[in-house]
């Protein structure tokens, strides 16, 4: 399937990536060639195949849900591009 410019715009919206017109053109070309490559799979009949869900032959273990507070709030906040004393700051959401 070829990925036209409208489809690129749609999925870039879903993926929250803004793109200019030139990038959209390039991506339409690149993504189309990648999808064409992927669609080789259509030659293979998989109607009777059960999809793989895990490659490890082990069931996932559960563990106690414990709080492990390392008291590193300040260190974590240090990585934030914008913060006040205790919070991450984002552009205003509610008018």
């Amino acid at each position: 399937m070829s990925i036209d410019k409208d489809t690129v715009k749609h999925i870039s919206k879903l993926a929250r990536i803004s793109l200019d017109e030139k990038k959209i053109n390039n991506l339409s070309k690149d993504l189309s060639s990648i999808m064409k490559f992927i669609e080789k799979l259509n030659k293979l009949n998989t109607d009777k195949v059960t999809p793989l869900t895990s490659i490890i032959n082990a069931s996932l273990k559960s563990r106690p849900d414990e709080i492990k507070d390392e008291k590193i709030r300040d260190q974590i906040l240090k990585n934030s591009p914008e913060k006040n004393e205790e919070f991450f700051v984002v552009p205003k959401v509610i008018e």
Partner: protein
Amino acid sequence: MSDISKFSLTEIVNGIKKKDFTSEEVTKSFIDNSKKSKKLNTYITECFEDALKSAKNFDKEKNYEGLLSGVPIAVKDLFCTKNIKTTAGSKILHNFIPTYESTVTNNLWSQGAFLLGKLNCDEFAMGSSNETSFFGSVKNPYGDKLVPGGSSGGSASALAAELTPATIGTDTGGSIRQPASFTGTVGLKPTYGRCSRWGIVAFASSLDQAGPMTKNVKDCALLLQAISGYDPKDSTSINTKVDSYSSKLTEQVKGLKIGIPKEYRVDNMPNEIDNLWKKGIDYLKDAGAIIKNISLPHTMYALPAYYIVAPAEASSNLARYDGVKYGHRAKGKNLIEMYENTRSEGFGDEVKRRILIGTYVLSSGYYDAYYLKAQKVRQLIKDDFDKAFKDVDAVLTPSTPNSAFKIGDKTDDPVSMYLNDIFTVPVNLSGLPAISVPAGHDKNNLPLGLQLIGKAFDEQTILNLSLAIEKRANFKRNYKNWWT
């Protein structure tokens, strides 16, 4: 004193233990080489001062209990290192300082090693040439115009150029084995679940695995032993015994059955690769192994399936980079615009392509046609291997369809870049262990590797077979130093 940086990891560990040299002397030797290596562009972050402190400290305390006592090691910048910048080769994480240490690097430090620096890689490990890094492309010691492979290209180049005695990379579709092949070094992708993924910047969670990259097979066994093991923090890591790979290592492979899959003889494969493969068969025959022709009929579908599964998982894993809690943030009139601009500025072209492919194949109405289909194909590929491993102990193939290519050669055509992983990707899809061992040079004197694929959790057998090849191939990294 002879140049310590020329020694193997095992020789360095033993030399420190026997007091032939101090940890400080070892560390200085690699720092000296690293400082002169700017043209290779392997380092994103240098930790030379801290490394020297650790070395001096080690020489005072003299604790020789670990497998890697007193050894400085530089690692791929995809492993989170506490209080040390971790970028994943991306602008979006250019200033990220983790508050925690990845389990695999922590295992290194528990064995007595310490950090020398963080090595360049393709952005979020997405690439086969180390050209997608925000910090620039890495050069191959075999030539200033050549890629070192990727995504663990900085690791491979630093190792081959003797800037670190050994290193660790990650492998989602070939990112350890392909650069190992391109630089004449040994690289192993362990069984999925052998090493913890905790604290590694995630790319495709059902495929990612950390692994050792070393100068020889013996070092590889040692380093694998050091990093392996169950970790309650990674629910997909497996609680099975970690073998003493290095002490059990043997070139006695008599009677082992080796499968040669006919589907790996691809169109347009250079004669040199085919000849190398034949040489590998001869080496193993000479060592007493039994060669059997096998079929892995769904091999040709592995790459297309990979390019659904990996981008789908990546698009989900990379949703967290939104400019709020860490990393790069761009301006925007409102929250959504801030997200969109942040991700547009923060991610490079290849990462954008993969996020968009992943978003597309997972978007409403397409799940069955793509992701579900790919998981079915993945089952078929795994069944191929399961069936083959009823008759053979390991599978021998070339590591890559070509030697190192020129910088810029494949950047305009993403699919031609993807085809470089044609021999490595099926292994990730099946969760199996595989190693690339250098076995020869092509007519341009560029290294070529052979790949051995093993049964799940049978890393020992492929290490042993690699040792048998290594002894017979008598491979030497014979590049001329052009960067100092």
